[in-house]
């Protein structure tokens, strides 16, 4: 029975590997950190967790993922910075003025700034970057919507940048801001790359840029390493180096944080946060949510010319069905159960982190949770139940069996999908849950090959980009390229308001228009906001201070953090002594774990050996 035995041996090994993997992972991570500390004792390194989305590409013209934005915020300059209250401040631009007709903006750029290779930064770099995004469809993939109203950008001299807009535009000072805006790239590096921008990976290190940090190394799905720019104009970073470490699971990151191998995690989940609040060596902070989690509905995906694409269920084009889905979704329960109440029930498209844009349906207009009503509207619309309890679309004759795409490795998506499946089943809609990787989900989305998707977006203080992905201009071309639509939403009135709010300078007036846009989205039920989860941060108190900026409100909620720019810039090492002592304490704790693991291994191994021996005896 040779085969039988070896297979069992493998199974036992697999069990051991499974039980030991977190320990092994932590040990592997500890080694390089210890080595670097030994070789350069006085140098300090800020160790943070990379965004869970990872980095899709280091090409700033094409990137969509949070991990990439976090990196760009540190290594590429922008015209403006944002202060703690979300107001535009100086960065490359020292000051800016607006012409009387509100069509021309003149930025005065700082003199004497240099790219990391020593070449001076001039207005020409900024003009070239913005012009490329305006004129080249590929270059506009990620940020094209931000400059769609720009008529021309020019640099009459090295410190002057002139932006002319087609219509008056209110948010020009938000167009190029760290993380959520357009990063300015060095013209002398990128000019030769502009032709084949689609294939540029931008992975020659150190990357030529300018910012609080220089990216010196990056390994996909592993880490990004940075050196501090000691001459940075907005302040010297408090650490000499920074590592953004990629973790496949937040639990592993939390274990690294607890054992002193990591200093900061932006975005733990609610269960982890609740557990970590009890730990005295950690600072736990809740930020007002700067993003939404919600359901998107493929209501007959179309290209810009109106050509139907994809395999969406035809019935989802019917607003009644979409409204029934909204009626059958209990957002309050989702907040309470899926994110332990650490968030706000969703309605408007823009998150509460930016209260100036936040919108709520008027009293009486909000969609309640009402299963009976959902059943009734479906009955009235002719969706009759089949023998199996699943309703049938009267037009296409297809049963209402819908695919729901969720992100793999995402507990929130998995949690929500369980509830949605339950509620929709009671109103006669059957869901088939499809777990997809982030890239598979996004590729299905772009092709229109989906019915329902769980999605989430975060936004900076200017809502233009997030509002822009719901405009008709964001739809893909007939060949499927150049689109960055989020749900194939296209509505004339919405597009008109989108252009109008861009040209409205009065804040309150603009907020009203943005509110109207959100009202259109809310009524269309194509993007159904479930909740705005609070961003949950954890930092070590013994190795880092000053990372969290701003002051908490009465409920203890901090404003949305610009962690990848201000947070990492302002973070400073805590006193070294406390770090060492606590590391020792933590070391004791992990010793117990390792000891336990060794014991377990010995036990399992012993049993296997004994078993084999007895088998051998039997055989002889």
């Amino acid at each position, binding site marked *: 029975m040779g085969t039988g035995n070896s297979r069992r041996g493998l199974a036992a090994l697999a069990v051991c590997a499974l039980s030991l993997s977190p320990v092994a992972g932590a040990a592997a991570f500890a080694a390089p950190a210890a080595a670097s500390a030994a070789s350069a004792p006085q140098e300090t390194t800020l160790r943070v967790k990379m965004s869970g989305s990872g980095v899709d590409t280091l090409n700033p013209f094409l990137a969509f993922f949070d991990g990439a934005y976090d990196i760009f915020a540190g290594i590429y300059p922008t015209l403006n910075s944002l202060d703690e209250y979300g107001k535009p401040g100086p960065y490359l631009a020292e000051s800016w003025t607006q012409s009387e007709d509100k069509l021309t903006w003149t930025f005065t750029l700082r003199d004497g700034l240099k790219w990391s290779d020593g070449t001076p930064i001039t207005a020409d770099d900024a003009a070239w970057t913005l012009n490329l995004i305006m004129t080249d469809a590929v270059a506009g993939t990620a940020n094209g919507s931000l400059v769609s109203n720009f008529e021309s950008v020019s640099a009459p001299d090295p410190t002057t940048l002139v932006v002319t807009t087609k219509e008056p535009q209110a948010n020009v000072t938000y167009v190029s801001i760290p993380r959520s805006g357009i990063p300015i790239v060095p013209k002398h590096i990128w000019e030769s790359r502009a032709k084949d921008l689609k294939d540029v990976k931008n992975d020659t290190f150190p990357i030529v840029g300018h910012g609080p940090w220089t990216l010196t190394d990056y390994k996909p799905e592993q880490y990004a390493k940075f050196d501090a720019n000691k001459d940075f104009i907005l302040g010297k970073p408090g650490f000499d180096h920074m590592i953004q470490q990629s973790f496949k699971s937040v639990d592993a990151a*939390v*274990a690294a944080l607890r054992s002193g191998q990591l200093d900061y995690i932006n975005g733990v989940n609610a*269960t982890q946060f609740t557990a970590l609040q009890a730990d005295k060596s950690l600072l736990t902070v809740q930020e007002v949510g700067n993003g939404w989690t919600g359901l998107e509905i493929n209501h007959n995906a179309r290209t810009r010319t109106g050509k139907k694409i994809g395999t969406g269920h035809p019935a989802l084009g019917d607003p009644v069905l979409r409204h029934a889905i909204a009626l059958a979704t209990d957002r309050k329960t989702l907040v309470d159960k899926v994110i332990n109440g650490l968030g706000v029930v969703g309605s408007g498209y823009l998150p509460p982190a930016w209260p100036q844009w936040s919108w709520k349906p008027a009293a009486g207009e909000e969609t309640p949770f009402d299963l009976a009503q959902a059943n009734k509207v479906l009955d009235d619309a002719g969706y009759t139940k089949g023998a199996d309890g699943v309703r049938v679309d009267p037009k296409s004759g297809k049963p209402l069996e819908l695919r729901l795409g969720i992100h793999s490795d995402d507990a929130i998506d*998995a949690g929500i999908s369980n509830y949605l499946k339950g509620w929709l089943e009671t109103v006669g809609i059957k869901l088939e849950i499809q*777990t997809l990787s982030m890239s598979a989900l996004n590729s299905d989305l772009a092709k229109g090959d989906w019915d329902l998707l769980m999605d989430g977006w975060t936004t900076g203080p200017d809502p233009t980009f997030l509002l822009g992905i719901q405009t008709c201009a964001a739809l893909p071309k007939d060949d499927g390229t150049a689109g960055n639509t989020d749900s194939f939403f296209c509505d004339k009135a919405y597009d008109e308001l989108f252009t109008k709010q861009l040209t409205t300078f009065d804040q309150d007036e603009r907020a009203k228009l943005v509110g109207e846009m959100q009202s259109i989205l809310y009524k269309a039920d194509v993007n159904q906001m479930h909740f705005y989860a609070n961003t949950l941060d954890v930092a070590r108190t013994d190795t880092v201070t000053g990372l969290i900026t701003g002051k908490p409100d009465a409920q203890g909620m901090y404003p949305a953090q610009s962690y990848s720019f201000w947070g990492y810039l302002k973070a400073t090492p805590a006193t070294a002594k406390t770090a060492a002592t606590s590391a020792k304490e933590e070391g004791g704790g992990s010793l117990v774990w390792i000891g336990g693991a060794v014991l377990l291994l010995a036990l399992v191994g012993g049993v296997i050996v004994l078993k084999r021996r007895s088998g051998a005896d039997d055989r002889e």
Partner: protein
Amino acid sequence: MTAATYTSAAPKAPRRHAFSRFCRAYAKRPAGLAGLGLLIAFGALALAAPLFIGDDQLNVIKVDGPQLSPPVDGYPLGTDQAGRSILLLVIWGARESLSIGLIATALTVVLGSAVGLLAGHYQGWVGKILMHVTDWFIALPSLPLAISLSAVLGQGAASITIAIAVTSWTATARLVRAQTLAVEARPFIERAKVLGAGNTQIMIRHVLPNVMPLILVSSTLTVASAILSEATLTFLGLGDPTSVTWGSMLEAAFLGGAVTAGAWWYLMPPGIAILIVVLGFTLVGRAVEHVLNPRMVVGR
């Protein structure tokens, strides 16, 4: 050869006799009995589950227990994030975990035995091709193959079952082929041939009954690894996230931060359930192996 006496005795004596002798021999192996006891207990629980577990206790929209609570009154093994009883989830999870394990094993055994029998009987180019295909499958790493298969076939129990079967039939095929070769070399096969038995008759009437004990043993052991594979694949997120299996429970616990929260009551029960069932099948398999394989019997 003792094996020959056993095999030639089988057709003469009534089957009932052989079975009761097998039972008596099996009863003398306490480990095998313990394993059988574990399996019967789990099997009975899984079969009886619908009698005492309803939609009200499993559907997240209907339960009202405390969230991620350690064992308390009414929830002897605590609750998950949605407030469902872990105990009931583990019992319910046995249904799908066991059925996927058993069905995948049945497929494995049928496929593996057919290939092994054919390859052993037709030793010409048919046998060569079949064995080359088998070798090719053995060379493929099974976990990545299973993952890509279930990714291609789509999620859910059916695709996982197929993925497990496709990746684990090779061992059975090799085993059965070897035994077929051994059986076919015996004189009684030659006698059957002389008496005019065709290929099918030799394979089905003469070889198969003699290979059967081996298949039985191998399949009991295959169930154990199939259940482990099922748990592995669902843990990796290839199952339906709304169905309850041990692997999906572990996945939900792991992704939901149960490790950080120290929620041992969420992680341990499905893990221990997998352990017990795999142990049960392994013990039974080994006991059956000892009883049926005369070369392993000591002091008779």
